[in-house]
C-alpha cells in the first residue's frame, strides 16, 4: 500500500558541503511497513523551475519514534530548496514506493555504496542485522570530505572506505579495495547503490565470481508509481519502470 502523507521536519543536519540529513516526523497516521531500498516522492514547493516531485531513497526508519530519515545530496534546484527547509516545516511525501532489496540466501554480504548511493544502505544494514546477518559496508567517494555518517554505518558493521584522491581508506574506486581483489571473494551477495558505472563494474564482478548482485537504479522519474513510463530500464523482459519494477533489480535481469 502506498500513501501520501505530510511529515514535519524535526531536524536538519548538514553533514558536508552538499549532504544534509533530514529527520521527518510522521503525522497522525502511523508509518507503514517500509522495505530497505524503497523510496519516497518528495514534494518541493516554492522553488522556481521545480515542477515535479523528487524521488529520494529512504535512508533510515525509526518505527518507535515514527521517524524517517532522508540523506539529501544537493544536486540541483529541487534538492537545494529541500535542504534549506527549517525545522518545523512540512514535507509532503508519496511513499513507500518501488521494490526494495531482497534478503540474501547467504550470511556473507557486502553493501557497496558510491556517493549519495550510500543512502539506502544504512536502512538495509539495519534490516539485515535484525535478520541475523552482519552487514559489511564498502563506501567509495571522491574525497574524505564527502564521507557521511560513517559512525551510523559503523554501529551496524564493519566499514571499509575508498577515496579517489586517497584522503581516506584505500586510494581508488571501490573495485580497487583489497576486499574486491582476492581470488575467492568472502561474500556471496553484493548490494549496491551509486553511480551507474560503478554498479556496472560490480555487476560484471558478480558475474565473474558467480555472486548475486542487487543494484538500485536512480533514473529520472515523474510519477513514481508506474503511470508515466518515463523512468524505464532495459531488462530481459523489455523496458520496465524503475519506480515499480525497481529501483532495486538483480543485475543479471538488466540489459546494461
Amino acid at each position, binding site marked *: 500500500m502506498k500513501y501520501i502523507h505530510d511529515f514535519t521536519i524535526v531536524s536538519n543536519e548538514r553533514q558536508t558541503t552538499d549532504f544534509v540529513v533530514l529527520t521527518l516526523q510522521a503525522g497522525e497516521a502511523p508509518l507503514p511497513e517500509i522495505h530497505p531500498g524503497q523510496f519516497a516522492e518528495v*514534494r518541493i514547493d516554492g522553488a522556481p523551475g521545480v515542477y515535479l516531485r523528487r524521488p529520494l531513497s529512504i535512508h533510515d526508519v525509526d518505527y518507535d519514534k515514527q521517524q524517517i530519515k532522508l540523506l539529501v545530496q544537493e544536486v540541483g534546484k529541487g534538492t537545494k530548496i529541500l535542504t534549506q527547509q527549517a525545522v518545523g516545516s512540512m514535507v509532503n511525501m*508519496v511513499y513507500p514506493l518501488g521494490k526494495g532489496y531482497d534478503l540474501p540466501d547467504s550470511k556473507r554480504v557486502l553493501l557497496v555504496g558510491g556517493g549519495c548511493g550510500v543512502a539506502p544502505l544504512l536502512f538495509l544494514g539495519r534490516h539485515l542485522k535484525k535478520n541475523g546477518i552482519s552487514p559489511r559496508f564498502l563506501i567509495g567517494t571522491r574525497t574524505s570530505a564527502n564521507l557521511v555518517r560513517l559512525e551510523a554505518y559503523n554501529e551496524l558493521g564493519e566499514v571499509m572506505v575508498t577515496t579517489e584522491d586517497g584522503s581516506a581508506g584505500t586510494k581508488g574506486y571501490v573495485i580497487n579495495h583489497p576486499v574486491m581483489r582476492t581470488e575467492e571473494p568472502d561474500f556471496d551477495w553484493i548490494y549496491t547503490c551509486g553511480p551507474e558505472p560503478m554498479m556496472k563494474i560490480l555487476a560484471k564482478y558478480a558475474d565473474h565470481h558467480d555472486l548475486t548482485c542487487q543494484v538500485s537504479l536512480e533514473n529520472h522519474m515523474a*510519477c513514481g508509481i*508506474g*503511470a*508515466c*513510463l*518515463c523512468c*524505464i530500464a532495459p531488462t530481459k523482459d523489455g523496458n520496465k519502470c524503475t519506480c515499480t519494477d525497481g529501483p532495486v533489480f538483480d543485475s543479471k535481469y538488466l540489459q546494461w
Partner: protein
Amino acid sequence: MVDLSVKLGSLELKNPVMTASGTFGYGEEYEDFIDIHSLGGIVVKGTTLHPRQGNDYPRMAETPMGMLNAVGLQNVGVDQFIQSIYPRIKHYKTNILVNVSGSTVEEYVETAEKINELESIPGIELNISCPNVKEGGMAFGTSCPSAIAVTSAVRDVYKKHLMVKLSPNVTSIAEIAKGVEGAGADSVSLINTLLGMAIDAHSRRPVLSTITGGLSGAAVKPIALRMVWQVANAVKIPIVGMGGISSAEDAIEFMLAGATAVEIGTANFIDPRITIQIIDGIRSYLESHQMNSVQNLIGGLITE
C-alpha cells in the same frame, strides 16, 4: 445539492473530471490514493495493435512549470490489454475509454474493432496527435485529409463513442476539429502535448533520447485554453478540454471556454489525489456561485 453530471454524446459522466491518457496508467496505479469510481471517466494508456517498447531512456525532462516526455507509446498491445488488463479494471464504476493509436489506418481500425467488443468500454479516444512516434501518431493529426481519413475509417467499424484527440502542433486546430466532426467523431479532446525540446547546456546534448518531445503541465494551459475556445466556436460536438489543468479553477476555465468535460494529466504526477480535489473544488464553486448544475458553466464565457 448541485448536479455535477454532464453528457458527452452517448456518455453519461457523473462529473466532468476524467484522466488523461498516459498519466493515469490503467487506473490501478492510483487505487491507493483515490476512489476510482468517483471519477467522471478514465482514459487508459495509449494502446496499439502490437506491443511497443517505446523510446529509449531518457524520456523525461522537467521544464519551467511543466515537463517534456518522449515515452513513445510503450504499451502491451491491444490483445494483452483485452486478456489481462481489461478483466482487472472493467468493474470500475466510471467511463473507461481506451486511447487508441497506430502507425497506419489499418492498425487504428483493427485495434478499434477489437475494443468495440468490450462491454465495459463505452468509448475510445483516437490518438492522432502523439508527437513521440516516428511514423503515424501526430502525422495523422497534423493534416486535415489524413485526420479525416483515419476518423472515418474507424467510424465505419467502431459503434460506440468516438472521441478524437487533437494535436496543438497545427496551424488551425479548428479546421482539423471541423474535419473530424464531419468524419463522424462524437467528440474531440484537446490538447495533446506541444512539441518541445530541452538541451543540457553543460553536456551540450539534448536531454531526451529522441531530441524533441511533448510538453505538458501548467506551462501549456493558456495555449490549451485558447484552442478549446477556438474549437468550441467551430464545432457542434462536445469538447473535452485538457492541458495543464491543476485545480478546480483551471477546470472551470476550460468549461467556460466551451469544454463539456476535462481531462487531468500531468497534475496527477504532482498530487495523485488531484482529480478528487478538483471534483470537490468544482462542487464548492457551484455552491458558492449558487449554480445548481455544472452544465451551466459550459461555454459560459462572458465576452461583452
